[in-house]
């Protein structure tokens, strides 16, 4: 019985914790599929968190908070897109700068809100009809937020979009071979802008989940490196949205267990766990023979210039 309740709460909290990781990772998957790497996920997330908190606190509407977070995240993504795509600056440097900018800006703007609880946070929901299922019911369908379920559905939709539609082929082509894509009359620049901005929107929503639902308040640096974990998830999931669900859950569980197992293991070790898993998973993937299907998009990180040929 005790084991069951431990299991239930672990799964439930891991799922809750995996939600922001999933949203951010899904956005980054699209950006990277189109050929642009954005190391600014952490920065876009925290900007989303503070923007969402401020909007929700001012208007009293968590929904408006999410809209604000998505918009600000999208704007941050647009900045990266402009620097990386139009100016063709180094994507890694630009992304890092975005993270530093986001953390700093959010800290500055959010000063007045530190320690203030959100007056009208997002409420947890219960999925009707399935809560009575043993273990699964309380673990997966009770006390979660709408954004958690929305994330799962969005992941599936994004997977369908990426692999079975015309737009999906275009996005993947832009990231694999922009020259070939351009030669067929597709605007690679536009596709990449779209995907990078979309990535920002998703990271913004991920931030909003933190400040509106998971811990309805504002703390400086509350994203605590989740943006980086999201980047690792993208690789771990081999740039596939549905696999990102499982990857995000594993990492979410790591974070949660680090907290839960403090009494048994030294907390320092447990805090290392998510990062250790990241390094380990990256190593395993690099060693594995996944074939050419499993690798990163071929043109990832390379600015596109229409050349002579």
């Amino acid at each position, binding site marked *: 019985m005790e084991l069951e309740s431990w299991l239930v709460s672990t799964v439930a909290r891991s799922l809750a914790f995996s939600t922001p990781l999933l949203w951010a990772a899904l956005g980054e998957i699209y950006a990277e599929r189109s050929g642009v790497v954005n190391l600014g996920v952490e920065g876009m997330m925290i900007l989303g968190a503070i923007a969402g908190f401020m909007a929700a606190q001012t208007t009293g509407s968590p929904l408006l908070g999410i809209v604000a977070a998505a918009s600000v995240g999208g704007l941050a993504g647009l900045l990266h897109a402009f620097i990386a795509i139009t100016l063709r600056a180094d994507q890694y440097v630009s992304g890092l700068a975005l993270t530093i900018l986001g953390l700093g800006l959010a800290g500055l703007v959010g000063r007045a809100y530190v320690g203030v609880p959100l007056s009208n946070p997002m409420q947890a929901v219960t999925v009707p009809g399935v809560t009575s299922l043993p273990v699964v019911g309380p673990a997966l369908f009770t006390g979660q937020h709408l954004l958690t379920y929305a994330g799962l559905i969005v992941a599936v939709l994004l997977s369908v979009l990426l692999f079975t539609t*015309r737009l999906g*082929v275009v996005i*993947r082509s832009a990231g*694999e*071979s922009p020259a*070939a894509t351009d030669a*067929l009359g*597709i605007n690679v620049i536009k596709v990449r802008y779209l995907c990078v901005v979309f990535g920002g929107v998703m990271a913004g929503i991920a931030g909003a989940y933190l400040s509106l639902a998971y811990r309805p308040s504002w703390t400086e640096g509350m994203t605590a490196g989740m943006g980086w974990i999201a980047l690792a998830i993208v690789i771990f999931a081999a740039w596939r949205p549905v696999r990102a669900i499982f990857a995000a859950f594993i990492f979410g569980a790591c974070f949660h267990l680090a907290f839960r197992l403090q009494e048994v293991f030294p907390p320092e070790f447990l805090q290392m766990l998510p990062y250790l898993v990241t390094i380990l998973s990256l190593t395993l993937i690099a060693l594995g023979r996944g074939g050419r299907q499993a690798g990163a998009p071929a043109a990832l990180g390379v600015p596109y210039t229409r050349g*002579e*040929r």
Partner: protein
Amino acid sequence: MLEAPPAPFPLLSAHALSKRFPGVVAVDNVSLELRAGEVHALLGENGAGKTTLISMLYGLVPPDEGYVSLFGEPVRLRAPKDAIARGVGLVAQHFMLVSRHTVAENIALGLPGTPFFRPTRRLKRRILELGKRYGLNVDPNAYVYELSAGEQQRVEIMKALVRNAKILILDEPTGVLTPQEADGLFEVVRRMKGEGHGVIFITHKLGEVLDVADRITVLRKGAVVGTLPREGADATTLARMMIGRDVVLSRVASAPPRPGLVLELSGVSARNDRGVVVLKDISFRLREGEILGVAGVAGNGQLELAEVLTGHRHVTAGSVSLAGRELGRASIRETFERGVAHIPEERNGVGVVPGLSVGENLALRHYRYPPFSRGGLLNAAATQRFAEASVREYGVSTPSLQTRTGRLSGGNIQKLVLARELSERPGGAVKLVVAAHPTYGLDIGATEQTHRMLVGERDRGAGVLLISEDLEELFRLSHRIIVMFGGKVMGIVEAEGADRGLVGLMMAGGTPKGTYA
């Protein structure tokens, strides 16, 4: 000049097109006509302006002067999609395919009228239909990275056909093909002709032109030398038009090899960087004063063979003996000291450091030996003297010894590499020259000089291993020719009087009986 009776209107015509780039006139007042049911060959050396010309026909580059008409109507092509929409298809030298996608996905990409969901579903049937009609065998479900160069080319042609291209431009289409694949391509071209398409066929190979073209336009230095119907053309005339003077296509006379062995490989196997076995049980001998050609389609182990002989890669089985001594796990420097000269396939990057000066690149092999350096300090004067002498002897055309090497033309970079590699070294003179595609992309002048250098080394008594995709070159220079396929030696033939069809067959993996010499 003889002209066939004109069709009602030409599919495509270029009217006095000109294009200048800083310092050069790439295309100079070129007019050209393509009729329905015609294969029009554009013949010219590298740098004759063929690629710039088709870039203008395909909307990649706007012309400075002149204009293009399609189906009798003047058009302005701002981008390739304008050309595609008007029925022009281009199969470029470097294929424009997404290698991790399926054939059908590649063809669906950007194709108007494909459904949003599962865009390839109706397309597959059409691909098979068109494939049957034109003899273009492609599997729509295959991934592009699984395909050979010839198959990828068929996908490119299919891409154009699905887009209803009436005009197909093929840019050096046979460069990556085996002779058999090339024949297959010619068959497709003939069927397209029969269906009323027009094909512009760009090449610098005379044989192909005479095989497949109905009319031939020869370009030299950006300008049209002349347009001939097929019936009025022969190889000698075309070569003269193309080059501007008579060239000798016959074999370079040579003395028979001497008895001394330069190189002996027995049962050599090696893996590539990904651990795949790419050389399988290779055995051959190379004698003093011999040029041994290595024929094969790119990627069949030739690169790795060169690497094994020059210390870049170690064998996993078998033995390599250089002038009677085991090569073993000799480093690159040791192979140099033991008399191996390496003319690498990749001139920029492997052959020279583009960012270093001409003088520095010339000294790259020698800097560590006296008199170029003593006690770890470089001797600038000795390096300078060596560089000056090399530049003079090999005719490297460079503004100064301090010029960045990357700014030189391909021909001059190759001369620089030859000067460095063929020079004396601490261990004595060159014993073995490993030359990989030594004339690829060079103009006729630089090609001839490179050939002279290789022949000079041969006459001096060195052994030359000449890896090339250019069969003309191999037959002209070699005593014997090894044919490689899939990392194996398919056969060794005497170049004098060899059956080229047989060589082509072996390049494609066929195994003739009783030809192993």
